[in-house]
C-alpha cells in the first residue's frame, strides 16, 4: 500500500493525536468499568450517610493530597526538560559544539533545581521544609 499522500506534513501527527485521544478515553473507561465490576460492594446506609450538623456538605468525591500535585509538578518539570533534550540528541551533529555547550548549561541549571528540590525535601512524602 502506498503512503497516504497529503499536502500537509503534519497530517501524520494529527492522526496520531486522534488515535492517542481515543486510546486514552478507551483506557480510562475500561479501567473504570473493570474496577466497578471487580470491587466488593458494601452499601450500608449508615456508612454512606453524611455526618454533619447543618447543611449538607458538598460532595467531594476525590480528595487528593496536595503531595500528588507537588509530585506531578516536579515530574512534569523534569519530564518536559527531557522532551526538550530529544531534538537536541537527534540533531546533535548538526548543532555541534554550540548546541553541546548550551545543553550542558541547561542540564547544569536543571541540576541546581533538582538538588534544591531534593534538599528541600520535595521528594519525600509529607516532609517539606
Amino acid at each position: 500500500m502506498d503512503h497516504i499522500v497529503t499536502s500537509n506534513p503534519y497530517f501524520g501527527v494529527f492522526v496520531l493525536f486522534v488515535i492517542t485521544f481515543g486510546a486514552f478515553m478507551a483506557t480510562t473507561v475500561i479501567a473504570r468499568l473493570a474496577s466497578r465490576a471487580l470491587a466488593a460492594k458494601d452499601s450500608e446506609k449508615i456508612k454512606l450517610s453524611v455526618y454533619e450538623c447543618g447543611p449538607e456538605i458538598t460532595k467531594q468525591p476525590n480528595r487528593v493530597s496536595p503531595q500528588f500535585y507537588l509530585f506531578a509538578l516536579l515530574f512534569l518539570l523534569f519530564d518536559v526538560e527531557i522532551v526538550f533534550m530529544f531534538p537536541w540528541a537527534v540533531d546533535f551533529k548538526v548543532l555541534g559544539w554550540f548546541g553541546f555547550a548550551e545543553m550542558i548549561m541547561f542540564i547544569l541549571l536543571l541540576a541546581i533545581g533538582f538538588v534544591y528540590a531534593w534538599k528541600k525535601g520535595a521528594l519525600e512524602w509529607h516532609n517539606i521544609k
Partner: protein
Amino acid sequence: MLSPINVSMESLNLMTLAPMLIPVVGALLILVIDIIKGGLHKSLYVVLSLLFLAMDFVAVADSSGVFMANGTTLGLFDVMLIDGLAILAQFIIVGASMLFIPLAMTHKRFHEFSYPEFFALFLFMIAGFQFMVATDNLILVFVGLETSSLALYTLIAMHNRDKSFEAAVKYFTMGALAAGFFSFGAMVFYALTGSVEINKIALVLAANGYADMGFVLIGVAFFLAAFGFKLSLIPFHTWAPDVYEGSSAAMAGYMSIVPKIAAFVVAMRFFEFLVHSGIVWLDVVLYIVVVITMTASNMWALVQTDVKRMLAYSSISHAGFVMAAILIGTTQANAALFLYWILFSFTNLGSFSMLWVSRQKHLPDYQSSDHSYNKFAGMIKTAPIASVIMALFMLSLAGLPPFALFWGKLYMISSAVTGGYTILALIMALNSAIAGYYYLKLIVYMFMKEPVQGNDGHVYVANATLALKTIIGIAAIGTIFAFVAINPILEFVTAFVYNSGY
C-alpha cells in the same frame, strides 16, 4: 542531511544578555547558599541582592554606553533587542528594585523575609522583567512575563496572611487568563504575518496594507486585554486593589511601579506602530480606556477608607494617565512616559514605604484595617517629621509644584497638547484636580484632626529601621529636589527614546 551549523560568538553578542544573567546568577547563588547552610540572617540576602542589583545596574549603564555609541544592538539570534526603551526601562526596573530590597530590613519580623527563596524569587522576577523589555520577540516577552509573574504571585503569597493568599490566588488566576489572552493575540498575529517579532509583524502588515483588518483588530483586542491586565486598565483592573491590599505595603508600592513599566514598554513597542498606521479603532478604544481608567479609578479612590486601597486606586489612575502617552504616540509623549514613571517611582515607593514603616502586627480597636485613615488622624502632633514627609509624598502625587510628579504631569499634559489631544489634556488636568482631593484628605487627617485616644505616635515608626529610613529619605530627597534634575533627565530620556525610533 542538514549541514552542521556554525555559530560565531561575535554574532551572538552575548553582552546583550549580561544584564539579565546577573540577577539570575545572583538568585542561583542565594539558593545554593541556602542549601549549603540554612538559617542565615536576612541581612546577608538583602546585601547579596543589593550587590547583584548594583552589578545589574552597572551592566545596564554599560549597555546604555554601547547604545549611545552604536545605536540599537541585536543579540542572540536577533532575539534580544537593546534599544533606548529597553535601557530606560531596565534603569527604572533595577533602580526601583534597589530601593525596594532594603525595605526587607524591617524592625518587626515578617514571615516572607525569613525565606532566602524570597530574595531568589525576587531576582528571578527582575530577570523576567528585563527579558520582557529587552526584546521584540513575542515569545520571549511571554517567557519573561511568565517568569516574572509566577515569581511575583509567590512573593505576594509569602506575606503569609489570609488576605495575601487570597490576593495571590486571585492574581494568579486572572494572570493566567491574561497570559492566555496574550498568547492568543500572539497567535493571531503569527497567523496573519508568519512572524513573532514585532518589527517584522509591522513590516508585513504595512506591506499588505492591513488587508485583514478584522483579524488584526481581534489580535489587538486580545493584546489590549492582556496589557490591560498588567497595566490595570479598566475593566481589567479588578485585581489591583485586592492584590495591593493583600500584599505588604512595600510590595504593593513595588508592584505599582516595576511590572507596569515593563508592560508599558511592551505596549509601547506593540501599539506604537499600530497607532501610527492610522487605525481609528485603536485610537478610539485607547482614548476611551485611558479616560475611563483615569476618571473611574479616581472616583473609587475618593470613597476609600483605607489609605493603602486609596493609593492602589490612585496607582491605577496614574497608570491610565501614563497610558495616554501611548495613545498620543509622539516622541515627546513617550519621553514624558519615562520621565513620569521615574518621578512616580520615587514618590509612590516613598509613600508606600511610609505605610510600611507604620505597619503594625496587631490592630487596635479604632482601626478597621491596616492603614485606615483614622490611624493617621492628628499624626502631626505625635510624629511631626513622619507626617510632613507623608504630606510631601501626597502633595507630589497630587502634582503640586515644585514636587516631582508636577513635572511629570506637566510634560505629559503638554505633550498631549502638542500632539493635538487638547480635550484629553483637559481631562487629564481635571483628573489631577480630582485626585488632589483624596490626597489632601489624608493631609487633612494628619494635620487637622485630633489623634485617636491611645495613639501615642509610636505606630508611625513601629517598623522603622535605619535601612527603611534611608530609603524614605532618598525618596523624599528625590521628590523635593526633582526640579534640579528634570532637565538632564528629560534630555537623556528624549535622546534615548528618539534614537530608538519611537
